[in-house]
């Protein structure tokens, strides 16, 4: 059990059930933010076509809000800038390489993310966040989570999260903050091109787990 769970004692422990539920709640929350704007736009046009500019503004709002949520989700795995090839980073990269197999090591070299298959789904671990592609690959959860020491090399940050994930996957998903939940294709559009192959690999892994 992760010791960090003590800091989020009020949260229910993550499980397949809570992940499914939080995904549905996220979808309903998004609908609640967009449907009123769409409804208002339709109503305005129906009442008086002169209000078209206002209706278009409402539709833009309905489009923008979900896009902002997706962008927030993509940010959790966005590279934090070029990785310094310092001695510390090389040492950290060596340790991370020892912890993962050949396939995740090659993926990390290409994308900066580490693929880890768990019981809850396929994880992609980054420096300051993680993605969880649920079995079947119809939904991805984006989590904001990081090591508390800000001066660690990039690969050590990933190793911190990876070890915590391996020690207690459910606890890891409980400690992490959910930044977005939705369809992988929506997230993929917002990811940097260099990171997309990692999401593709995770969705492949998620499909294999269904």
């Amino acid at each position, binding site marked *: *059990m*992760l*010791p*960090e769970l003590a*800091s*989020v004692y009020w949260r229910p422990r993550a499980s397949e059930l809570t992940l499914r539920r939080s995904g549905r709640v996220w979808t309903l929350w998004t609908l609640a933010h967009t449907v009123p704007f769409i409804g208002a736009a339709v109503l305005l046009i129906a009442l008086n076509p002169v209000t078209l500019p206002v209706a278009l503004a409402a539709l833009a709002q309905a489009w923008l809000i979900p896009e902002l949520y997706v962008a927030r989700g993509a940010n*959790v795995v966005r590279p934090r800038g070029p990785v310094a090839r310092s*001695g*510390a*980073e*090389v*040492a*950290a*990269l*060596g*340790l991370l390489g*020892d*912890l*993962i*197999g050949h396939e*995740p090591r090659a993926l990390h070299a290409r994308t900066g993310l580490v693929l*880890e*298959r*768990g*019981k809850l789904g396929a994880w992609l671990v980054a420096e*300051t*966040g993680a993605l969880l592609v649920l079995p079947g690959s119809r939904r991805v959860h984006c*989590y*904001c*989570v*990081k*090591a*508390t*020491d800000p*001066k*660690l*090399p990039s*690969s*050590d940050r990933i*190793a*911190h*999260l990876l*070890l*915590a994930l*391996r*020690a*207690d*996957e459910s606890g*890891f998903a409980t*400690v*992490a*903050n959910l930044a977005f939940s939705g369809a992988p294709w929506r997230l993929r559009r917002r990811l940097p091109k260099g990171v997309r192959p990692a999401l593709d690999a995770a969705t492949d892994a998620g499909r294999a787990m269904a």
Partner: protein
Amino acid sequence: MSRLIRMDQTGHTTLAEWSAEDQDSVAAAVQAFRAELDRGYFAVVSEGEGHAEQVRELPLHAPLVILRRPIAGG
């Protein structure tokens, strides 16, 4: 030879190396291990993809024990 390493700003630092048959090296490793736990580090033994064990006592037969900082939601 087993190793106790701490992930830190240098990448990682080897704090102790021991062999289960060498009591002096074990005692030094246990002392280093407890000192780091007191400083707020957590100890983990990785057991391959998908598996790691959080430990509170130094596992003498583990080849590698890694000390990590706490994580938190961002």
